[in-house]
């Protein structure tokens, strides 16, 4: 059992507070993704669990046991980093065997061979076993470094941006492989990234981290469809969710001199920030609002249209076949049941307040 629990973690580097009262639970066997920008505290969290960081306060529990006094080696966790640190002079097999030949573990030769073969098969690198690692591609090297983590059969995998240094095509295929690996091994995965596509596509759960605090934890659809505040709303989705300041009045939205319908909102009058994702804005003749096309990006499968609304810009995604011209005036509306409302001051989602 490898449930991970962090309670009230604080960590500062000098005057810089990296983690602030961080509470986090990763259930046994879960694929948990921590999403945040540079400096949000993602890597510090991983290093705290791995035992590589001395904490100012708080406790780390793995499988229900407080591991605060344990060394990194005693914690039975494997760490995979963005920079694969393999031994260049050794073959792939030599690299995979290495963690099993450590002095504190004693494995028979047969056991070592069996574990290496199994890991190689899982990662589809059996044909590379006798090759020197310096002759491998980036993706192969990253698979070997994951393999080196697997052979020890740890119950917890901690991964720090393992795909970030790879090219787009390789990242795509390794995302799928990592998910398959997770379901094959049944281990607990804690994966750290700044890339919202990785978080959405791999995580059973996503934790959004900001300035050392956990802002929201939920499934990808919770985070995407029911963000707790505007920060979370804009951390997933591309282009990000549109945020438009306006008024809620008589059950409709007033923005930039137009009235647009909203579903299920109380009939109070107040200023709010409306949140609507680009795929839920519609271009249609006769729609209630009007704006000028500022920019068009053809992404092949879709087009991203930017509308100039004076004080703000609005992103709209439309099918690739849609014909619009730059500087053209277009009518637009939105899907009334997909509009969120946020408090303009605190940024909180009013539906979840």
């Amino acid at each position, binding site marked *: 059992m490898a449930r991970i629990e962090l309670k009230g973690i604080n960590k500062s580097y000098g005057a810089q507070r990296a983690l602030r009262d961080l509470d986090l639970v990763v259930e046994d066997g879960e694929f948990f993704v921590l999403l945040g920008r540079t400096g949000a505290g993602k890597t510090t969290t991983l290093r705290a669990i791995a035992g590589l960081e001395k904490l100012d306060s708080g406790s780390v529990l793995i499988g229900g046991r407080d591991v605060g006094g344990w060394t990194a080696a005693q914690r039975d966790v494997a760490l995979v980093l963005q920079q694969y640190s393999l031994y260049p002079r050794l073959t792939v097999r030599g690299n995979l065997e290495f963690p099993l030949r450590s002095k504190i573990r004693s494995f028979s030769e047969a056991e070592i061979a069996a574990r290496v073969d199994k890991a190689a098969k899982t990662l589809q690198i059996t044909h590379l076993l006798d090759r020197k690692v310096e002759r491998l591609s980036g993706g192969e090297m990253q698979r070997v470094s994951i393999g080196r983590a697997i052979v020890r059969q740890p119950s917890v995998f901690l991964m720090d941006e393992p795909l970030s240094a790879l090219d787009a095509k390789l990242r795509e295929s390794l995302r799928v492989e990592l998910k398959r690996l997770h379901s094959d091994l049944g281990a607990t995965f804690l994966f750290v990234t700044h890339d919202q596509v990785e978080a959405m596509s791999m995580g059973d759960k996503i934790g959004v981290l900001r300035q050392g605090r956990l802002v929201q934890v939920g499934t990808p659809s919770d985070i995407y469809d029911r963000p707790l505040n505007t920060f979370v709303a804009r951390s997933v989705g591309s282009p990000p969710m549109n945020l438009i300041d306006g008024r809620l009045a008589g059950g409709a939205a007033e923005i930039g001199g137009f009235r647009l319908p909203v579903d299920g909102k109380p009939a109070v009058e107040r200023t709010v920030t409306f949140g609507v994702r680009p795929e839920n804005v519609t271009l249609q003749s006769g729609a209630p609002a009007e704006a000028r096309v500022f*920019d068009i*990006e053809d992404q092949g499968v879709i087009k991203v249209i930017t509308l100039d609304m004076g004080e703000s810009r609005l992103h709209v995604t439309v099918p690739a076949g849609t014909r619009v011209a730059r500087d053209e005036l277009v009518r637009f509306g939105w899907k009334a049941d997909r509009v969120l409302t946020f408090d303009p001051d605190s940024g909180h989602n009013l539906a979840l307040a």
Partner: protein
Amino acid sequence: MARIELRNIQKFFGAVQVLKDVNLTIEDGEFVVMLGQSGCGKTTTLRAIAGLETVTSGTISIDGRAVQDLRAADRDIAFVFQSFSLYPHMTVYENIAFPLRAVRQSTSDRESAVREVARVLGIERLLNRKPSALSGGDMQRVAIGRALVRRPKALLMDEPIGALDAKLREQMRAEIKRLHISRNSTSVYVTHDQIEAMSLADRIVVMHGGLLQQVGTPEEVYNRPSNLFVAQFVGSPVMNVAEIAPQSGGLSFGGDAMLPVAPGLVSHLPEGRALKLGIRPEAVVVSETGGAGTVQSRVTNIEPLGSHEIVDVTLGATTLRARMEPGRVRTGAPVWVGIDTERAHFFDAESGLALRRTA
């Protein structure tokens, strides 16, 4: 205003040939993006146009005048790099005005030139600041301003927004495009990012191994790739590519997996050659109910991306990725898979070249 022509450009670094017979015409006022991986020759091409790199052979002409033997300063071309390279001890105003120091001009002309670019770039309020007080996006705006203030014939940009974060890149893309339109200048832009290329370019030049792979509008490059390299370089997720064998009943994916397609499609394919099918994720159709032109399969993975999902299905030895609306199918579920044959591409497996349909 400038029409740029490259004819038979060869470039060697020692024994390594980095440009292999590059021929390209960039029309006056056009926005051309050179797209490729690192080492493909795109930056070398750009530097050769600017005069920062000599070519081994071939001619470069700007508005009909051969310039390959002219110094960079005599070509009247501006260059923007990924690293901002501003003078840290000068204000934004002084940085932008710097290229004008060699031009005989009254102080008021100089000031109006600086203010005009600053206005276009939206950085008027920053003119008295030092670069150290600017954000990354503003620094790059200043660098672009400095490049534009002389009103050069052409603006060359080498991954100018590659060092910025994702949100700022998105915003700067739109600004660079607007700027290009308002100035009507010839722009050549180098990137490895296919989204930047698709969204900025009038025409994209895809390079690989020192060779031009395809030159075309974003729509052409996306919908009619000339070879497998281009097909898999543009688009995300990448185009599915599968080894197939045309048979009388349809396309065989190996094993028992046979996708029935109209006989007309198969009869156009050449016989006796190894072929690959290319199909974009949005042209793979996955459904819980069968029908004509579908084959049974299973969902092996789903990536929920919020606005859409990427659904993986297996056909014989191949995994196809489909782009779908969220929540339509579940992992492990039996499904039926078909393809939109109008959007199917076929490639010669050996040469990688696209087979053009004749009908």
